[in-house]
């Protein structure tokens, strides 16, 4: 028994030493952060004209600094624009894989949808105040594999009269297995939720 005790202590000691020395101080591998959206670009393009661009940039990801939203968005009255939404992951450099998230959302269009809301009257088409908290229409110009809208491309006709200090909100929802003809902005998880202000119709 005495020897058993001795053996035990020895064994423990060997175990400890082995594992202690087995631990190397190598740098851990950084992760590929694919999901993060740090920058959103809205591109309002009139037929044959130059695009009006608005961006929202997150300077520090999960950090405590606020999102920087540039503006104002100045659109021309009575004009039809095609709006494309670009989603960017700033942890990657431009051109690197992972930088542009837009395509990924399009490919998984059957579980994503963009919703919009704005100050009522900003647009003559769609009329109303959008489909986030109200049940207005949005002119979607793209669709997923189930022929349901995604919202990365949409069409907008501005009001015929001048309007200033309007708000414009975009909301991207992840709706795995629940995106349907009746799913709305309250369903699923939020991937993106940004309110642009001000938007002016001149």
């Amino acid at each position, binding site marked *: 028994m005495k020897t058993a005790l001795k053996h035990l202590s020895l064994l*423990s000691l060997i175990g400890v030493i082995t594992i*202690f020395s087995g631990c190397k101080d190598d740098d851990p591998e950084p*992760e590929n952060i*694919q999901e993060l959206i740090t920058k959103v670009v809205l591109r309002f393009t009139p037929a044959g004209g130059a695009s009006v661009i608005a961006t929202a940039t997150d300077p520090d990801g999960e950090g*405590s600094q606020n*999102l920087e939203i540039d503006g104002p968005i100045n659109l021309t009255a009575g004009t039809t624009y095609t709006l494309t939404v670009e989603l960017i992951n700033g942890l990657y450099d431009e051109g690197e894989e992972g930088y542009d998230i837009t395509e990924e959302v399009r490919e998984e269009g059957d*579980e994503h949808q963009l919703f919009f809301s704005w100050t009522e009257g900003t647009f003559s088409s769609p009329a109303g105040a959008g489909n986030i908290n109200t049940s207005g229409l949005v002119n979607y110009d793209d669709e997923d594999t189930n022929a349901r809208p995604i919202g990365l491309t949409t069409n907008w006709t501005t009001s015929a009269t001048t309007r200033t200090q309007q708000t414009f909100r975009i909301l991207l929802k992840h709706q795995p297995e629940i995106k349907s003809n009746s799913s709305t902005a309250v369903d699923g998880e939020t991937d993106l939720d940004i309110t642009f202000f001000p938007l002016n119709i001149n």
Partner: protein
Amino acid sequence: MKKYLFLLHILGYSLVAPGQQQENCNLSLRGQVLDDGGKSLPGATLFIRELKLGVVTDVDGNFSFSDLCPKSYVFEIQFLGFESLEKKIRLTKSDEINFQLTSENKLLQEVVVSDHHQIVNKTNTFSTLTSGSLEEVKGKSLGETLQGLTGVNSIQTGPAIFKPVIHGVHSQRILILNNGIRQEGQQWGAEHAPEIDPFIANNIVVIKDAGAIKYGTDAMGGVIIITPADLPTDQKLGGEFHLIGNTNGRAGIVSGLLEGGVKNLKGWGWRVQGTGKKSGDSQAADYNLSNTGFQELNYSASAGYHEETKGIEIFYSHFNSTIGILRGSAINSTEDLANAMEIEPPQYTEDFTYAINQPRQEVKHDLFKLNAHSRKGNNLFNIQYGLQINKRQEYDLRRGTLKEIPALGYLLYTQTLDGDWEISLNENHSRCVGVNGMWQDNNKIDGTQTIPFIPNFTNYSAGLYWVEKHSTKKWDLDFGARYDFRYASVVGFDFRNELYRSQFSFNNASGTVGGTYKINQSSSFTSNLGSTWRPPNVAELYSLGTHQSAAAIEYGLLLDEVTNEVLDIDDVNFKTEQALKWVNTYRIQKGKLNMDLSGYINYIFNYIYLKPKGVTQNTRGVFPYFRYTQTDASFVGADLSLQYALSNSLAIGSKVSLLRAADQTQNDYLIFIPANRYEVSLRYEKERMGSWGNFYTEVKAKYVATQTRAPRVVPIQDIIDAYEQGIDLIGEDSENFDFVAAPAGYMLVTFNTGISKTLNDSKFDFRLSIDNLTNTSYREYTNRMRYYADDLGYNISLALKYSF
């Protein structure tokens, strides 16, 4: 001390005279209980564990049992002031035997003895779940099991994740000793249940004092000690088999155990044990709780050699669980959270299923332990080595194929080496000195494709302690001191996903002093004052990210408030957390009355908690953010546990836990503090019913009050609306807050009944219990699921145990 527990035990199983009617079960055993000098001990108690049967010796120390079967029984013999004795005896014929007890003063003052480690001092305030009362809750998780004790609650995340809370503190502030080893998964946050299979436990002791000096730092609230039965030392094969079914969750639990000795090798014993659990979605009173299923597969094996003065034991256990988190609680932004809190039944509520999807936790825990002891005269030496491997992965709702890979994954290795030396200096005085060493290594599991929430780290800890005990006729006194050192080296990734390195070291002392005054034969008063500290947890210093289901961003103490860069610990005003806890207990066990009344004050200096600091916006919307901050916190409370025997077979009981906690620096309330609770029970027992025995039936009613001492309520919509107007509702007034008000008080009724049948060498136990008998819809303040859904509806549980 154990005598009280023991009497309580007997009281629990009624004060009926011996007897167990069986065919062929007509053997008797008689004899005498003697002290070390051969003098008879009148009033000593003898208890047959298998039969849950107790007798008391007469004036001449004589006892007799009749109607025993030809098989092995474990006898527990106790007398105040003497070391309790456990002896397994195999009966083949009616026999006579004398039991000799050793005066306690000559040995150590132990209450529960496991591997010859003393666990509870006479001067501790503690509660115990003995094997008998554990039997009645078999199948429940560890956290649920512990809720049966006064002063112990749990922080819950849904129906399957229970984190024990002692006197209002939890997680890093209490210690769990699993078979003698500090459970290291305990330092994970409140939403992680301890990885322990309660089927392993033969008894569970909760020490409610601070600084149970032997086990190291961190024991600010107390210590939970889970102890398996001693390994058998005789050759006979024994075993038990449990089968349990629950209606809620349509759950099934199977557990089995086999143990025995080794032929021709006296003193050697072994045990293997395993448990499997599977549960589908649980149900609230009115709807299904989708994705709250869980499954568990645990097993353990041990072997050892024991003789009078020496022993060696090897133990291995594996714990593996997959736990679903309520689907409707998975949210990505504060807007989602506002939606989720309003929708009832929760979003994504579907029909019952056993499937467990995202979000879910997958947890594995392996424990290997080797320990030995040796006694030489008045000296006892213990040595113990432990290795724990804790693997944790959390799956979240993520885009596309990412949902198939965990959003969080860590692998934590812990090795410990403990040694101590206990010596009896004389009849009244003993001493124990010991050392603890720990090495711990945490690494992220690569491939999560998220910025790690906490960094990789390596910890080295060492501790040294000294405990002195003295007894007189009227007093038991003890004194303990301890010194610990910890060094940690950290490597992680900041908000830009860039590597940083950091390190810190701490050292500090703990101390405890306690005394028990024996007022008379039936009552005593215990007072214990303990001071302990704990090194900060890595999460408290370096956390970065959004917590699953919380819609809140968390920042560690070392992150710069503006730039989020990791600072050196010397550059922030950090002080180690230090607790001073004073517990006083009055115990009385007189005639039909058995009562424990404790009052406590726990003042924690530099208490680390998540303080709401402000509102920030990122591309997913507006988020409140929290920073780990320090304050002084106080926990003041009282526990009452009372039993009164109305007759030989009928007893009433009551349990009360009261607690008031406060943030002293800010003069504010703390969140998730258990509300006051009151329980009454009525229990009827009958030892013999024809060829059946051990019948009990019990009704319990538990009332949990509304937590009125809760922080202010700031609804999420208010936070978002104010932010749009340029107002930071949280930053302007950084008081603690909660998104919704504390839920209303509730009352739950539980019914339990059970009966046993013995056939030759085997025994069958049947149990039926109904939880939430009235199918009440309620929400518990300390259950994080309360934001989204009601707590569990009724559950009918049927259990069968076969043992031989």
